[in-house]
C-alpha cells in the first residue's frame, strides 16, 4: 500500500497500463505538451512519445469519433474530455456510436475505449463548467459508467475500464483530485458493476457516488462520534451497471435510506436508486427514502450562491435526522446539528 492522491493514482495507473499493453494510447486536449489541465497525464508524452499520447484540436466530437474508430480497429484509447461539460459536444459520438456499434452491427466490432472526464462544481467555474451530467451516459445501454470516490478505487476501476471491451465513461471529480488514500501496489482490477459498503452500520443506509460517496463516509463517521449513530455507507462505484443487490441488501438491514448526489434531484441518479429500493426492499422500509441533491438551478458563479446550491454536509445530516425521526429512531442529540 502507498499513500497517494486520487490524481497520482490515475496518473500511475495510466502509465502502468501503457507499459503493460502497447495498444493503450491517450488522446485529448492539452494532455501532451501541457501535461493535462489537471496534470493527470504529466510526463507521459515525454515517456511514451507522440504516437501514444496525442494532443488533439479543440474538437471533442472529432477526436472522440477518432478514438471510437481506433478502438474498433484494436487499440485501447483513453480519451480525456477536459470536463464532462464538454462531452455534450461529443455526445452524438458517445451515445449513437460508441454505445451502439457492438450491438447494432451484430458484434462485428467492439469499442474498447475509456472516456475519462471530471465532473463537479464548487470551483467557481460557472454554470456551463460545473455540471454533473453523468446521468446522460448512465441512461444509455451499451455504455458503462464508473465513478470512483477514492484513490484506490480510481486505480482499480481504471484498470478494469481500460481492460474492458465495452466503452466506459470514467467519471472523475475536480474536488477529489487532491484527496489522499492508501492504494494497493499490485494491479487488481475492480469488477465494474459492484458497489462497495465503505462503512458498515445498522441505523440507516447512506448512498452516494463519486464526491458524494466521500462526503457520505465523512458524515457517517462524524455522526458516529457526535450522535452515536451507526450509519452504513454504500459507494455505488458504478452507475451502469448499477449494483442493485448491494443497495437492497443494505436497506433490508437498516430499513431506511438517504441518497446523496451532486447532480440535480429531478430525474437524477438518486431517483433510480430510490426506485431500486422501492422495488427490492419495499417490505423492509420503515420510512420513505429521502434524497439530497443540488438545488435545481444552473450553477451560480458567486461563491456564496455556489456553496448554497451544492448539497452540503449539513443538508445530509438534516436528511438523516428527518429519516431517523420518521422511524422513531432514538438518537442521543435532539437538536439539528450544525
Amino acid at each position: 500500500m502507498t499513500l497517494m492522491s486520487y490524481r497520482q493514482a490515475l496518473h500511475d495507473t495510466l502509465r502502468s497500463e501503457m507499459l503493460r499493453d502497447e495498444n493503450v494510447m491517450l488522446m485529448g486536449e492539452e494532455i501532451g505538451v501541457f501535461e493535462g489541465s489537471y496534470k493527470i497525464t504529466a510526463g507521459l508524452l515525454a515517456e511514451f512519445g507522440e504516437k501514444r499520447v496525442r494532443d488533439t484540436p479543440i474538437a471533442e466530437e472529432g477526436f472522440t469519433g477518432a478514438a471510437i474508430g481506433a478502438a474498433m480497429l484494436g487499440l485501447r484509447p483513453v480519451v480525456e474530455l477536459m470536463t464532462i461539460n464538454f462531452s455534450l459536444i461529443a455526445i452524438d459520438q458517445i451515445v449513437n456510436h460508441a454505445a451502439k456499434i457492438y450491438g447494432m452491427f451484430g458484434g462485428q466490432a467492439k469499442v474498447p475505449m475509456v472516456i475519462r472526464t471530471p465532473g463537479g462544481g464548487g470551483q467557481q467555474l460557472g454554470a456551463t463548467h460545473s455540471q454533473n451530467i453523468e446521468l446522460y451516459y448512465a441512461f444509455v445501454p451499451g455504455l458503462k459508467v464508473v465513478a470512483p470516490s477514492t484513490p484506490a478505487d480510481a486505480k482499480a476501476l481504471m484498470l478494469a475500464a481500460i481492460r474492458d471491451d465495452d466503452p466506459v465513461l470514467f467519471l472523475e471529480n475536480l474536488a477529489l483530485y487532491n484527496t489522499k488514500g492508501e492504494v494497493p501496489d499490485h494491479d487488481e482490477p475492480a469488477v465494474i458493476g459492484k458497489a462497495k459498503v465503505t462503512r458498515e452500520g445498522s441505523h440507516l443506509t447512506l448512498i452516494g457516488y463519486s464526491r458524494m460517496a466521500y462526503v457520505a463516509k465523512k458524515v457517517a463517521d462524524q455522526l458516529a462520534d457526535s450522535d452515536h449513530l451507526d450509519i452504513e455507507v454504500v459507494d455505488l462505484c458504478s452507475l451502469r451497471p448499477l449494483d442493485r443487490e448491494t443497495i437492497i441488501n443494505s436497506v433490508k438491514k437498516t430499513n431506511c435510506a438517504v441518497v446523496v448526489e451532486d447532480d440535480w434531484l429531478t430525474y437524477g441518479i438518486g431517483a433510480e436508486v430510490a426506485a431500486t429500493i422501492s422495488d427490492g426492499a419495499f417490505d423492509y422500509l420503515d420510512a420513505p427514502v429521502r434524497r439530497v441533491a443540488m438545488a435545481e438551478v444552473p450553477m451560480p458563479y458567486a461563491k456564496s450562491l455556489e456553496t448554497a446550491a451544492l448539497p452540503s454536509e449539513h443538508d445530509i445530516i438534516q436528511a438523516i435526522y428527518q429519516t431517523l425521526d420518521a422511524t422513531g429512531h432514538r438518537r442521543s442529540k435532539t437538536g439539528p446539528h450544525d
Partner: protein
Amino acid sequence: MIDITMPRLSDTMEEGTIATWHKQVGDTVKVGDILCEIESDKATMEYEAYEAGTLTEILVPAGGLVNIGVPIARLDNGKGGAAPVATAPVEAAPAPAPLSEAPVAVSAPAPVASAPEVADADRAGIIASPLVRRIAREQNLDLSNVRGTGPGGRIIRADLDATVPAHVAETPRGAAMPMATGPLVDEKRGSQEIPFTPVRRVIARRLGESARSIPHFYVTAVADAEALVQLRVQLNEQLAATGRAKVSINDLLIRACALALREHPLVNASYVSDNSPTMLVHDRVNIGVAVASNNGLVVPVLVDADHKTVSELGAETKELVSQASTKGLSIDQMSGGTFTISNLGMFGVEEFTAIINPPEGAILAVGGTKKEAVVVDDEIQIRHRMRYTLSADHRIIDGALAAQFLQTLTRLIENPLSLII
C-alpha cells in the same frame, strides 16, 4: 405545503406539550429558525425548522398536548399540494399509559383514527410502514391496537418493539444465524441448523437481556397446600354440579399472587433505567402466565387479576392458552404485564428458578403440589405441600420485601377461603 409534526425529542418521549410558539401564523420561517419550545417528559427544548416557508396555520396552540407524529403546524414551502385537514384535535390525544413501558396503549386510538378520509383510503384503516406490515403479516400481529408514533401517526417498527425484537426486523428471512458458520457446525458433533422461529428470537433476546442485565436473587418458600387442595375439590364439585368449568391450582395461585401484590405494591414495580431518577410502581395488577403453546413460550396477560374471581381467572386463562396454541395471541394480549407466574408443577418439578420477564420486577416459579411427610404438632403427617421461588430484581426489591411477599402468599395459600371471598 407540509405538516410540521410533534418530534420525538427523547428516548422515552411519547407526547409533548407546546410551551410557546416563537413563530406566528404568517411569519416567514428559515431553516434553523426556532419554531416553538416543546416540553417533553424530560425537558423543554427548542424545535428548529427543517424546511423554509411561511407558517400558515398553528394546529396546536401553546399549552396543547399531543402525541409525537401529530401535526402541530402547517408550513407553506411553496410546493403546493395542500395537506388534507385531518388532524387529531388536541383533546383527542390519548392519555399515555404511564405504567407500561410498551408504546402499546390498550384503549388509545391511533392519532389517524380521527381522520376518516385517511382511514377510508387505507384498506385496513391502519397506516403502517411497509416493514411493519410485513412483520405483522409474518408474525400474525394485530396492528389495530398499536399506536403509531411515526409522522402522521404511522406505525413504525419502534412501535412494535415491545413484542418484536429489532433484529427480527433487521435480519432478512433465511439469513444465516451467527451459529450457522464456524466450528459449531461440524461433523464431530453431527450438528444440524434449526432456524429460529420469530417467537424463539423474542425469547432469546428478552431473556438473554434479562439474565445479563438484571441482578436476580431468589427466595424460596414452602406452603402447606392441604387446605388449598381441599378447597379446590369442593369448588369443583360445586362448579361441576352447575355445569361450569373447573378451576385449577394455578387459577387459585394467580388469585393469591394478585392479592399478595396488592398488599406489597412495591413488588408490582419496574426498574426503568440506570439514568432514570424514578422507578415505576404499578397501580394495576396484570399477571402474566407463562404458557408452553404449540407456537412456543408465550406469556398472556390477565389484566386486573386482583379484580377477578378465581373462576373468571380460570376461564380467561383457558381461553388465552387455547388461543395461543391456535391462532396466536395479539400484542395487546401479551403486553402490559406487571408480574409473571411460571408453573412447572404439572411436569413433576418440585422447585426451580425463573428469569424475570422485563420490565417486570419479579417472577414466581411454582413447583408441583405433592404429598410429603411433615411434622405437625410433633406428629408425622402426610400433607400436600407446594414450593415456589420468587426471582426478584434487586435494583428495586430487597430480600426482606421478597420474603414478606412470600409470607403473605403462603398465608393466603394456607388460608385459601380468602381467595374466594
